[in-house]
């Protein structure tokens, strides 16, 4: 049996404050597995941990506990610069965070791929003014056809954002206060605790 495209196994990330008396300020937990190529919609309020989740999957941010396996290989054991040959995070330049490197490169492995096969799009700019949005959506479908895993994180603000997510995504992750819930379709997503509050009026479009 071949390995799942992505397996997030008992992963947690804890941020603390204070040197002697450590106080937990944020905790993200995730445990899920995606076997095959698909387009996964990701939603959640600001500050809920969406970008942190993406950073942990692409290996730029080190988890406090658990592992992330991409096609069976633990991405956090791969040479830093080559992790984007497995999973690549597309974000706005202001979102880019840099993390200290934990181990020297010679102690780390080569990636199991030459080209990225997990693509995480973090709030791509969807504007209806120009036509680029159409090319972007076609590109997500092309990646999916090529057997890759696509994450599409959108913070819905307009009805057409919901329409795009409903028509493009084959399943959803909802990230809220550090917890990751999974739904197999849009109706399932609406049933997840907190989603209706988050979407407000947009929920029933």
């Amino acid at each position, binding site marked *: 049996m071949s390995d799942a495209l992505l397996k997030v196994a008992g992963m947690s990330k804890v941020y603390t404050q204070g040197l002697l008396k450590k106080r937990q300020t944020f905790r993200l937990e995730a445990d899920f597995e995606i076997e095959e190529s698909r387009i996964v919609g990701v939603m959640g309020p600001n500050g809920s941990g969406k970008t942190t989740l993406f950073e942990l999957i692409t290996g730029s941010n080190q988890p406090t506990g658990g592992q992330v396996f991409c096609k069976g290989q633990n991405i956090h054991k791969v040479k830093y610069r080559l992790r984007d040959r497995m999973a690549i995070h597309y974000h706005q*330049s202001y979102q880019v965070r840099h993390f200290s490197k934990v181990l020297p490169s010679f102690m780390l492995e080569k990636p199991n791929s030459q080209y990225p096969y997990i693509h995480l799009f973090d709030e791509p700019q969807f504007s209806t*003014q*120009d*036509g*680029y949005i159409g*090319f972007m959506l*076609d590109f997500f479908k092309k990646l999916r056809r090529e057997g890759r895993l696509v994450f599409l994180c959108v913070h819905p603000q307009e009805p057409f954002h919901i329409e795009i997510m409903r028509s493009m995504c084959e399943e959803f992750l909802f990230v809220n206060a550090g917890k990751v819930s999974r739904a197999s379709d849009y109706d399932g997503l609406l049933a997840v605790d907190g989603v209706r509050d988050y979407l407000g009026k947009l929920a029933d479009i």
Partner: protein
Amino acid sequence: MTESPPLFVAEHLHKRFGDQVVLEDINLSFNAGSISGIMGPNGAGKSTCFNVLTGMYRPDGGSVFFDGEDVTGLAPERIVEKGISRSFQIMNLFDEFTALENIMVATNRVRHGLHRPFWDLRADSEISHKAAEVLAMVGLTGLENSLASDMSYGQRRALEIAVSLATEPRIVFLDEPTQGLGADGRANLADLIGTLQEKFTLVIIEHDMQFLFRLANRISVIHWGQIIAEGTPDELKANEWVRTSELGKMTTC
């Protein structure tokens, strides 16, 4: 009938700046005698792609072939010798030189280090004759002796293109040629580029979709440092979102 192979081919181009991937697996090919367009939103990687194609940057992976020859990583002056030329978004004209002189200093014979003083160059009838021919190609005949600083913005844009033609290229890359031009200027430039197609293979980088839809035989759309779409203008215009966008409304008028 067998199709001739493309004149210019880029395969699996990869480029990074530090930890950031700026070009990811770019594949492009340009046929001889065609006009190709490269378009994309700001920050999509258009200029980096252009700089790699024209030898200003060396790619971290992948290859560039011109007329079947691997030209990856050659120095810019060697690239020019092969017959690849480019214009710049920021104009590189000598303001205190005349239009003709601007062309003359860009011709191959001068570039190849004839260390002669400039007055001698002006007396070289072969070079000035050639330069006048190039000026004629861009419709600037009659302005040979005008100082570049005295020319209008549109004329300076045309002169900038003429400078890139002075090296007798076979393929010419134009970097955002409509930059700073109004509607009339764009229309004139489109006409000019149409006439150049008879003599050169052209690649135009533009964020003005309209301009490319009108001129290009084939367009590649770059975003996230990758080719996210490509096709003829008609194929791209058939996209549902392009049709319903402001752009689509304009192009159907």
